[in-house]
């Protein structure tokens, strides 16, 4: 079994801290999960409707009680509407993050954002060209201003088509048109979807699902994609970079500052501020051996990709990092931050500092970060961390010393740059490898951690099984962090875990078999990498022709639901561990797992066993290879292990 909230991790450093937390009496997510059991089956099945106070209405999943709510909504309508609200929130979260990055670009262009500059002119000019903005005779700031204004207009667009939709292959755009799901404007698509779910609006489950898909696409090819593009323009396009990951990156005598959350605007400035002489002196005067910045969740991925700042851990390690007693400040902004952080830090010197205008925590100090005074805000935060360091009790701290090497910083632009691509990346080696049968295909493995699955086990088992079968893996988010900690992002991992064909490609190109491509908004990079594979030729005309698949083996968030939906609706088969909370509706589950394929070329599957899930992906990739008429795989497939071995307890 997959662990089921039993306070277990396959990551030794995490397990050490889980045990330490128990000894100290700290309550962790696993404990709260146990206390909440049994969780409500009606909620799990998506057949409880609380959208108006005629209810709550719960449909009987066993076919003997109530067949519809007070208003007459069936299990199908209710499950579809509930999914719609989840996806609307997931898309809104990515997109609001994207909007803030675009706004920072705008303010930088206007000279209002202290400390920021445009670091990636190539990408700025490429986006300007795509938008049809005349650049001749204009200075950089003017171009940036026009690009930012144009991008911002896409968030508020009321009609027409979202601009970045044109990046998708023609056949995919046609599918979207035919199904009536082409995104309009990011904000409008979220609002329309919310309207559809109001009592007595959209009642046809399949029609609701189409609206869900439109909004999800508006995230993947809109909000998330703008977040990635504009982060690259502002903070620089990542290049392959070495770093380390796991709790052991924190140092006993440094001022340890953990950034946790999602938006890169502040963490970028913390990186800069930690290097300024006045702040360094402060740390030195306090007797510290400098600052140690480290990240958790996607903020970690953003500053890892661009600066090589090490990673402290992923989603379920946020409380474990605090439990070390060696974190001086945990700087949080938005998304995936446990409210419980306050409780665990209460009896320690650790300061939890909330920085976003959008999020507040009861009992937490707020140092609100604004882009106009970014550097000042960052210095204020680091000064607070130094103060906390002075209070730290070294005897009470318990730091695991393990961390693992990794290489991160892969993007559509940088992935094959070593082979001499210009701005237009050279995907020939990848396509060639697939066509020759060295590589079976490519898989994107992304997503969160979930107390219902042994921590990191799902990610690591799945990815090992994929690379063993010659599937190149690209990763984002907490999934990437899990595999980085497990050593799968070191070039040596090719020798240890990869199939023979994949190993040959890794050796030739000089990459690890598992590539870190960024944060959760950077799943847009994976979409665009697939677009490049189609453009490169030889692997079909649409994303749905490619021998690729996606997965989220430990997912938990609404953002993951939006991502899975846009990836599937872009033509890519996607496997999720936990089922979407819609299984109480036959119509909804059938459309997501079967019907979508005819309409979009991609669909979802739900499988909790990571190795069995990997084989669903491999089977799909094989199906696509066959449809393309590709040659047999060059090397024999290893004997398949179709089920995962239970994780060590």
């Amino acid at each position, binding site marked *: 079994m997959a662990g089921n909230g039993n306070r277990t991790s396959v990551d030794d450093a995490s397990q050490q801290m889980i045990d330490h937390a128990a000894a100290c009496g700290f309550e962790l997510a696993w404990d709260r999960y146990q206390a909440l059991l049994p969780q409500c089956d009606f909620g799990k*099945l998506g057949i409880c409707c609380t959208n108006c106070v005629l209810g709550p209405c719960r449909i009987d*999943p*066993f076919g*003997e009680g109530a067949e519809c709510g007070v208003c007459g909504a069936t299990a199908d309508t209710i499950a579809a509407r509930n999914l719609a609200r989840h996806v609307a929130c997931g898309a809104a979260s990515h997109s609001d993050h994207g909007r803030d990055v675009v706004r920072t670009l705008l303010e930088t262009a206007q000279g209002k954002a202290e400390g920021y500059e445009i670091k990636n002119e190539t990408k700025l000019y490429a986006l300007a060209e795509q938008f049809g903005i005349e650049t001749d005779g204009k200075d950089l700031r003017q171009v940036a201003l026009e690009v930012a204004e144009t991008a911002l207009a896409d968030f508020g667009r009321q009609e027409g088509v979202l601009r970045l939709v044109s990046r998708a292959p023609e056949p995919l755009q046609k599918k979207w048109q035919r199904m009536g799901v082409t995104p309009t404007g990011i904000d409008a698509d979220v609002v329309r979807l919310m309207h559809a779910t109001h009592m007595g609006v959209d009642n046809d489950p399949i029609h609701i699902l189409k609206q869900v898909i439109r909004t999800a696409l508006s995230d993947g090819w809109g909000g998330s994609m703008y977040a990635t593009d504009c982060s690259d323009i502002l903070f620089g396009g990542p290049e392959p970079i070495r770093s380390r990951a796991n709790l052991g990156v924190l140092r006993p005598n440094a001022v340890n500052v953990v950034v946790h959350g999602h938006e890169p605007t502040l963490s970028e400035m913390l990186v800069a501020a930690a290097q300024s002489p006045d702040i360094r002196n402060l740390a030195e005067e306090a007797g510290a051996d400098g600052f140690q910045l480290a990240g958790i969740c996607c903020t970690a991925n953003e500053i890892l990709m661009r600066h090589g700042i090490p990673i402290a851990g992923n989603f379920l390690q946020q409380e474990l990092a605090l439990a070390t007693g060696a974190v001086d400040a945990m700087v949080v902004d938005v998304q995936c931050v446990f409210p419980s952080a306050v409780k665990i830090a209460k009896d320690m010197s650790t300061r939890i500092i909330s920085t976003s205008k959008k999020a507040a925590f009861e009992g937490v100090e707020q140092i609100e970060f604004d882009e106009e005074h970014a550097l000042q805000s960052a210095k204020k935060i680091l000064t607070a961390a130094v103060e906390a360091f002075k209070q730290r009790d070294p005897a009470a701290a318990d730091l695991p010393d393990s961390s693992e090497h990794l290489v991160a910083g892969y993007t559509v632009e940088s992935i094959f740059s070593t082979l001499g691509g210009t701005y237009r990346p050279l995907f020939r080696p990848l396509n060639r490898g697939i066509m020759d049968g060295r590589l079976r295909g490519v898989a994107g493995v992304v997503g969160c951690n979930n107390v219902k699955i042994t921590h990191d086990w799902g990610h690591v088992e799945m990815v090992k099984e994929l690379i063993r079968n010659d599937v190149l893996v690209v990763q984002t988010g907490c999934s990437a962090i899990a595999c980085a900690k497990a050593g799968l992002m070191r070039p040596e991992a090719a020798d240890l875990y990869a199939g023979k064909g994949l190993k040959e490609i890794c050796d030739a190109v000089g990459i690890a078999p598992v590539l870190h491509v960024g944060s959760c908004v950077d799943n847009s990079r994976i979409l665009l990498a697939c677009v490049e594979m189609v453009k490169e030729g030889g692997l079909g005309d649409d994303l749905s022709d490619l021998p690729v698949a996606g997965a989220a083996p430990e997912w938990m968030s609404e953002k993951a639901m939006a991502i899975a939906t846009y990836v599937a609706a872009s033509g890519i088969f996607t496997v999720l561990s936990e089922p979407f909370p819609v*299984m109480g509706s036959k119509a909804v589950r059938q459309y997501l*797992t079967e019907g979508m394929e005819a309409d979009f070329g991609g669909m979802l599957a*739900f499988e*909790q066993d990571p190795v069995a899930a990997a084989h669903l992906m491999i089977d799909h990739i094989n199906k696509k290879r066959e449809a393309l008429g590709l040659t047999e795989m060059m090397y024999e497939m290893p004997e398949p292990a179709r089920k995962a071995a239970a994780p060590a307890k």
Partner: protein
Amino acid sequence: MGCRACETACARAHAGVEDIEKALLEGVHMRPRVHVVDAEGHPVPVQCQQCENAPCMAVCPSDALQRDEEGGPVYTVPDKCVGCKLCVMVCPFGAITWDEPTGCVIKCDVCRDLVEAGEAPFCVAACPTDALAVAQPDELSAQKRRGAAVQTVHVVQAAD
């Protein structure tokens, strides 16, 4: 509280599934043996009372309802059920259900394997507010007697 956790736990247990989402995805047949019924605004779980002189057993023409010992749980033997539904008619609690897909009646057996092993039945274990319990008649009477006695003392003390 009317959460119906007992119902879903019961249906899962009798179908032998742990994961309800996966079971529905695979089309597994599941039905509960306990029903939360609304009684003038109060949710009341209704299930077989395991009657000593069980009318369902008495009326069954094919010996499809059995118990291993006096006072033990009454359970169904699906192979023997002829589907006459007489037990459904005579049960004073409506605790027996005709199950069309399997062609036999179903009822609560207090998860007899579990209880024999000293564990709580699934419905009891699932109840988040401890509103369900397994009690033996002697124990229950003794407990109620104690409660009544204490209450009487309190009433007398209050009167003094």
